[in-house]
């Protein structure tokens, strides 16, 4: 067992004993990824913030049920993914990312100027719109595998299915994404 995992187990044990400082460490460790996943799925930064924070509260409430022999991160990200898609199912219609929010979400690289940021924001919008047209099972794998860069094994653990299923869905999702993207491009060029 590696040192990082041992540390994490120790933090979880302290959380179970009701130590707020230990839970704070857990939040700091996983908040960026949780918020990132929520942003990619919900595409509204304020909502993503609320839902990812709600995931931490759910985790705190059910931490006593977590099996310490298993990996924590897939268990936690599964909660985030489920909460986000549950939310989307409830509201039915997905909100489009507004240009301004997308710009604010971009990394502030040394080469980025306002014009470049606008172009990238538009491209992000387009990607998100194509993504939203895909079935949920394809959105899930694309978000985890391509946007959040989880491995196929990690994605399988988060989605609670086997790796072969993830690979098959990924294959179909990328094909469909490309197909839809190209059809939109063709439409725009007409």
């Amino acid at each position, binding site marked *: 067992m590696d040192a990082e995992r041992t540390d994490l187990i120790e933090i979880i044990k302290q*959380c*179970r*004993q*009701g130590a*707020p400082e230990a*839970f*704070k460490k857990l*939040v*700091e460790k996983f*908040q*960026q990824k949780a*918020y*990132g996943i929520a*942003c*990619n799925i919900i595409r509204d*930064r304020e909502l993503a*913030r609320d839902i990812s*924070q709600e995931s*931490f*509260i759910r985790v*705190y*409430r*059910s*931490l*006593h049920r977590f099996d310490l022999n298993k990996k924590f991160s897939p268990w936690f990200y599964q909660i985030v993914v489920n909460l986000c898609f549950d939310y989307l199912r409830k509201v039915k219609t997905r909100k489009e990312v507004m240009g301004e929010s997308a710009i604010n*979400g*971009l*990394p*502030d690289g040394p080469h980025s100027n306002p014009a470049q940021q606008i172009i*990238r924001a538009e*491209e*992000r919008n387009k*990607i*998100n719109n194509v993504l939203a047209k895909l079935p949920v099972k394809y959105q899930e794998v*694309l*978000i985890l*595998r*391509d*946007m*959040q*860069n989880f491995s*196929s094994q990690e994605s399988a653990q988060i989605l609670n299915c086997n790796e072969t299923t993830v*690979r098959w869905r*990924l*294959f179909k999702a*990328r*094909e469909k*994404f*490309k197909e839809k*993207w190209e059809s939109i491009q063709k439409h725009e060029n007409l």
Partner: protein
Amino acid sequence: MKTCSKIKQFIPLAISQDLTETQQVLLNQHLPHCLDCRTELSSYREFREKMMDAGAVTESDTFWNNYTEEVMTLIGRENITAPTSQLNKQYLPLQFIRVAAVFLIGLTLGYSTYLILLKKPEPANQSFKKDMISSYQTEKLIENNILGVKFTPVSPALSEHLQITPNYGLVITDFLEQSPAKEMGIQFGDIMVELNGQPITNTGIFTYLNEVKKETFELKIIRKGETIVIKINLGGR
């Protein structure tokens, strides 16, 4: 050599090292000879880069500090105690309610089963209803340990047919095991009408048998339209 169309199926997964070793080897062998597949591969790579860029979310340090503090405040505000102690405090009353509910349901089901299965009239009585006085639906069978018989009151229709006073007489419908009445010659379907000259009404006969000290009685019965007197000796009881 694999055809181009088969190799193309590997391309969507090739951009993220999701191919098997054999598939990767086949693709590597094919790519240098096929411009079409190379173009396809680079377009998938481009998509992935765009996706990764779209997935990247960066926020300031202040944002993350506030984020953490908000989570901690939410946890504090909800007054959530340590998960393990929460289990004890919140779940114990719930468990008690569940156990009580299961017990009550079990009790209800058990009693219903008892009523349905054990309190049901025996088949012999049901056949009697069909044979003798099927029109008389309100009969109530009474068991008695002295004579060892089961009986039912004479129905109004039967009273009329036999020309006996209404509400008098009892019809033998069944016998218990080791029935003294059966040993003394009483038969199924006999109608007991008088005991020692007294008209028989409902259960009054057994009260009389229990109270009077006599061991020998004369029982008048109607059997197949004929009146018969049977002597009952309860000396051995």
